[in-house]
């Protein structure tokens, strides 16, 4: 078991999930509460990363973030190092790659909140921030939880983007899914089995724990 890669995957998934929450809560609120046809375009755009094969998405990012574009040069100047083949680069790639998995559950959850409640809060003078923090988020708690869980797990299991953008550098970009893939490709099926089993076991435990607590809360509320 490659614990360095395991730790790296956990760190990548945690950082990515935090950034995704910070982006997708305001974005999903805007999509649900806002008016105008352009919001449909925003929602479409936020879902689009699902369409591209991950390695192709990784390739586009490699080119976009590389020294051949002004954008890539700007970021390299800001950070002091190029984004490709670094942990920061993987974070950028993961945020884009997992964006639909954070935005979709949130939009669905926010949209299912009773419109009458939202209108009432508006009439009582609640601004958009208050509306989101006191009405949408508490009433769509399970969707928020789903967004967090899906973003986190999708990043843990992310492969194509990391393969393309990472360059397989131990401690920096060699994540657990890369290690697992290497073990399979190198015909080391025993190690691959162990790694996969541990990953599946830990994820199943974590998921069960999360869903158990949220269900208890759900029952307590309805009782």
């Amino acid at each position, binding site marked *: 078991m490659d614990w360095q890669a395991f730790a790296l995957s956990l760190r990548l998934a945690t950082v990515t999930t935090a950034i995704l929450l910070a982006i997708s809560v305001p974005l999903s609120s805007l999509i649900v509460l806002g008016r105008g046809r352009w919001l449909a375009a925003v929602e479409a755009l936020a879902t689009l990363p699902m369409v591209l094969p991950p390695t192709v998405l990784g390739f586009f990012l490699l080119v976009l973030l590389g020294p051949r574009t002004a954008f890539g040069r700007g970021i390299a100047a800001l950070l002091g190092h190029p984004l490709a083949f670094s942990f920061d680069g993987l974070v950028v790639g993961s945020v884009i790659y997992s964006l639909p998995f954070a935005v979709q559950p949130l939009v669905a959850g926010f949209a299912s909140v009773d419109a009458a409640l939202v209108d009432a809060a508006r009439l009582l003078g609640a601004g958009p921030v208050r509306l989101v923090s006191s009405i949408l988020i508490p009433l769509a708690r399970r969707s928020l939880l789903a967004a967090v869980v899906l973003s986190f797990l999708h990043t843990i299991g992310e492969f194509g983007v990391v393969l393309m953008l990472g360059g*397989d550098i131990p401690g920096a970009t060699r994540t657990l899914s890369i290690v697992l893939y290497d073990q399979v490709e190198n015909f080391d099926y025993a190690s691959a089995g162990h790694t996969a089993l541990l990953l599946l076991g830990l994820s199943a435990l974590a998921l069960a724990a999360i869903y158990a607590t949220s269900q208890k809360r759900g029952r307590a509320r309805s009782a």
Partner: protein
Amino acid sequence: MSKQFLAALSAFLFVAPLGAQAPLRVAAAADLEPVLPPILVQFEKNTGIHAEATYQASATLTMQIENGAPFDVFLSADLSFPKRLIDAGLADAAGSSDSSTPITYAKGTLVLWERKDSQLPSPSLDLLRSPALKRLAIANPDRAPYGRAALAALQSLKLYDTLKPRLVTAENIAQAAQFVDSANADAGLISLTSALTPRLSADGSYFVIPRDLYPPIEQGAVVVSNTKQRDAAHKLLDFLLSPVIQTQLAKSGLTPVK
């Protein structure tokens, strides 16, 4: 929905297209992707046998054949993967002098490739020694034959320890080339077949790594044992070894064996 539409839809979804004759399925190493397609066209012209190739890393193809992938011929980028299949009784080189050794159909050439607009010195062994070389792309040495050769060459040059922290590992030789072509890596050790593709020869220049620095990259072919088209498979292998095709291989960056 009308009944006719439903019938048409289910025909489209569930009825397999009828082909006149199943094609000869070729599992080909990724470095053959720029080389093989015109050869297969010529093969069909000469023999009337239609062959279709799937390009993948040799390791992946080996794993697929081990698990019953319906290939007839395997053209690897090295000898170890086809040998592995022979040892498992899944492939053979029947018809050649020694049926337990893969048929070597070409040899690969390792080159150091760099973009023309790079600020660093032009590709040479000195470029590998230059401290300005920050990122050197190689293919995965655990399984990509060119990656293995790259590692051996760096070790022969006693540069491996110096360059180790600056290596970026790509999944295969094509991806190593992409790392350099997108300017994210300064240079890469890739195959001559890649360096000679129109795209890469327009973007960059290469230096042939001296052949005494790495063990030869012998590319081996085998016939998958449970093929139903053994005759066609042997015809393709004979065709690959014919003088005309061997000359053609040389032009696309492989060293002929005949």
